[in-house]
């Protein structure tokens, strides 16, 4: 194994980390998070506008398309800090949809849509299907040419924030090969979208029925790059899920520690009991290690070979760390942990999302074994 792993941290990352940390703390205190859980949209449009104004939507979009011209590495601290405050909003799907266009869109598509995304219009992705294969090139949805148009069919699940979106970039099988198409949401027939019930109540996830949906021929992304675009999105999504897992794990540990420092049982602060203290330390250690993997993945993202290894390790370590921390958080809060009022459940529900989407620990490790030996 190489001893020379790299972990660099750019000035831009540092700046964004600091800004995001303060912004998310201020805009997304837990009462707001809980209020937005009850909200249909799931986020505050005014806050979204502020994020847009901060330029966050264009961080990894080239300047020629209205972006800041940085990379996914600079998106990571923002997503991490958002998740640390369980902040809602379509930042992740919009960023990933932009990545799909950058990696695989035609010049015309990029010029038309990327500036709009940078300006706050929402786009999202439709990749996962009910067969639940984490391999995104296993696509059963179809696109068939018919009269100069593409007739779509099939079903997509976990289409995030589709209600807020103007565009949905969906993967389809066309002539037996993977392809991606841009669907204008306004063209969807009534009832094509149905909100899904997911454990992480801060999310807005939708099921999309493609039967009956037709898109113009130029809605197709560059077919010759479809496979590599899907690979790119898979890794980009995994990177951001790792960032979310790390952010949530950080506050989950802090939240637990605060309880252990103040709650007494049998006349002693419960944090003095090693049966609570030591597993909490284990959660901290796992989180810290996951965070180091995360920033390794951030700074090597896109590098051939090494980039994929780093992302998969980060995803495996971060989602496992969050699930462990949140499971123990419920347990260590005792009776209070069993209530909806206790935030431990918020973290545990978030962990189900971060863990099960785009491949859990065992899946990533099997992939890594193929890459490493």
């Amino acid at each position, binding site marked *: 194994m190489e001893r020379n792993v790299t972990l660099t941290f750019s000035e831009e990352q540092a700046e964004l980390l600091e800004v995001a940390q303060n912004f998310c703390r201020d805009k997304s205190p837990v009462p707001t998070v809980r209020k937005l859980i009850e909200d249909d949209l799931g986020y505050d449009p005014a806050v979204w506008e502020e994020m847009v104004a901060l330029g966050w939507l264009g961080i990894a979009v080239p300047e020629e398309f209205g972006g800041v011209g940085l990379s996914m590495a600079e998106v990571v601290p923002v997503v991490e800090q958002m998740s640390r405050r369980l902040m809602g909003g379509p930042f992740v799907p919009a960023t990933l949809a932009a990545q799909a266009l950058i990696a695989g869109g035609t010049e015309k598509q990029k010029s038309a849509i990327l500036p709009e995304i940078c300006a706050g219009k929402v786009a999202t992705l439709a990749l996962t299907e009910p067969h*639940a294969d984490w*391999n995104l090139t296993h696509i059963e949805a179809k696109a068939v040419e018919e009269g100069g148009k593409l007739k779509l069919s099939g079903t997509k699940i*976990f289409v995030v924030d589709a209600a807020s979106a103007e565009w949905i970039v969906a993967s389809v099988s066309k002539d037996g090969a993977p392809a991606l198409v841009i669907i204008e949401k306004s063209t969807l027939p009534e009832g094509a979208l149905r909100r899904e019930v997911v454990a992480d109540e801060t999310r807005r996830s939708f099921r999309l029925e493609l039967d009956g949906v037709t898109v113009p021929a130029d809605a197709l992304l560059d077919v010759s790059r479809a496979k590599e675009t899907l690979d790119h999105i898979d890794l980009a999504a995994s990177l951001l899920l790792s960032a979310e897992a790390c952010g949530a794990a950080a506050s989950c540990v802090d939240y637990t520690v605060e309880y252990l420092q103040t709650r007494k049982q*049998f006349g002693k602060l419960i944090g003095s009991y090693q049966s609570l203290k030591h597993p909490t330390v284990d959660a901290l250690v796992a989180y810290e290690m996951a965070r180091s993997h995360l920033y390794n993945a951030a700074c090597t993202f896109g590098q051939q070979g090494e980039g994929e290894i780093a992302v998969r390790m980060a995803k495996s370590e971060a989602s496992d760390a969050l699930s462990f921390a949140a499971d123990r958080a419920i*347990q260590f809060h*005792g009776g209070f942990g069993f209530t909806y009022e206790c935030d431990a*459940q918020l973290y*545990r529900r978030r962990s189900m999302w971060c863990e*099960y989407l785009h491949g859990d620990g065992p899946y990533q490790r099997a992939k890594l074994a193929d890459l490493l030996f």
Partner: protein
Amino acid sequence: MSDVSQKELDEFRAGARAWFAENVPSEPDFMLPLTFMEVGTQEQFDFLRDWQRKCYEAGYLGAAWPKEYGGGGLAQAFQDVATQEMHRAGGPIMLNAIGINWAGPLILDMGSEEQRKAYIKGILSAEDIWCQGFSEPDHGSDLGNAQTRAVRDGDDYVINGSKIWTTQGNYAKYMILLARTDPDAPRKYDGLSFFLAPMTVPGVETVPIKKLTGEYGFTQTFFTDARIPATSLIGGEGKGWAVAMRTLEYERGARGGQAGGYVTVYPDVGEVVELAKRALRNGHPACEDPIIRDKLVKLLATYRGLQLNGKRSRIAPLVQDKPMSLPLSSKLIATEFYREINQLAMAMQGPRGAYYVGEPEAYDEGIWQRSYLNAFSGTIGGGTSQIQHNIIGEHVLGLPKS
């Protein structure tokens, strides 16, 4: 009544089997609770209360309790048979759990003749729902430190304070209540008394608690100058701790005396195996994944080990080294097992593990996700797993107190 003939038992079994086959209700269009702690809606409550009354009236609950108070007056073996047949037929749970497993046995054991006459029948018929008032918001694990006050005033005690995790508190007519009658007792345990407290008097308020699953099922109970009759005292003033400990032993089944039936349905482990064959993980049935296979077999071995522990605990030469080891560890093993098997069931589902109850496309309506979260009631309630470790370490291994 100890020498029951096999023939009588067989006949009783045949009758029970026929009755349950006929009477187990078909599944309603709402989800039935798997445990008595999960009763969250009025329709669930009504359904289960009807079912318990029906079982009681047919003679399959309380069959071994004394006839003079409303029981069936038969030998325990008959009730055991009835419970087995109830299981076999897949009947819903008994609703009045605190009554049939805790309060009822206690009243039969230590109550006055008046108390037995007043309470037993209503427990069995589910006419009178009972709840339990041991834990307090600030002393979840530390029962001996309960601070709810009971002050004698003439023929009453006046209660002030708050109890938490009151299962079915909003439905209950009575509470078994642990309260402090003497705050100045030199040993904190000596200041406690035990009451069969009515919940219907003024000054008792119950507030539902939303569980981490998003559902209801517990309440917090507030007492504000609530007056309960002094006759509701059981075991004598200052003896509350001993009575409470005795009550906990009924729960653990260590003293027997429960009315029968069951108040929790553990999903058959076979259902998890069946899910593994059905759930798509990474595009293939989860049961083909070697990591899932390894973990599932490990958990199946635990499940089987629990059953085998139960059998071995009755074979004296095989438990002579540490006789309390098996009985004291079963709660820890069973509750942690239940949490882990549900966690594994979620992992089998690939991305669909992120779904939740209410999502039509979730496997089994999201029951695994909900069961995982509900499983913490086992690893936290009735002594957390951490406290169970202490108990085993200290009582079985003789290790010094932490």
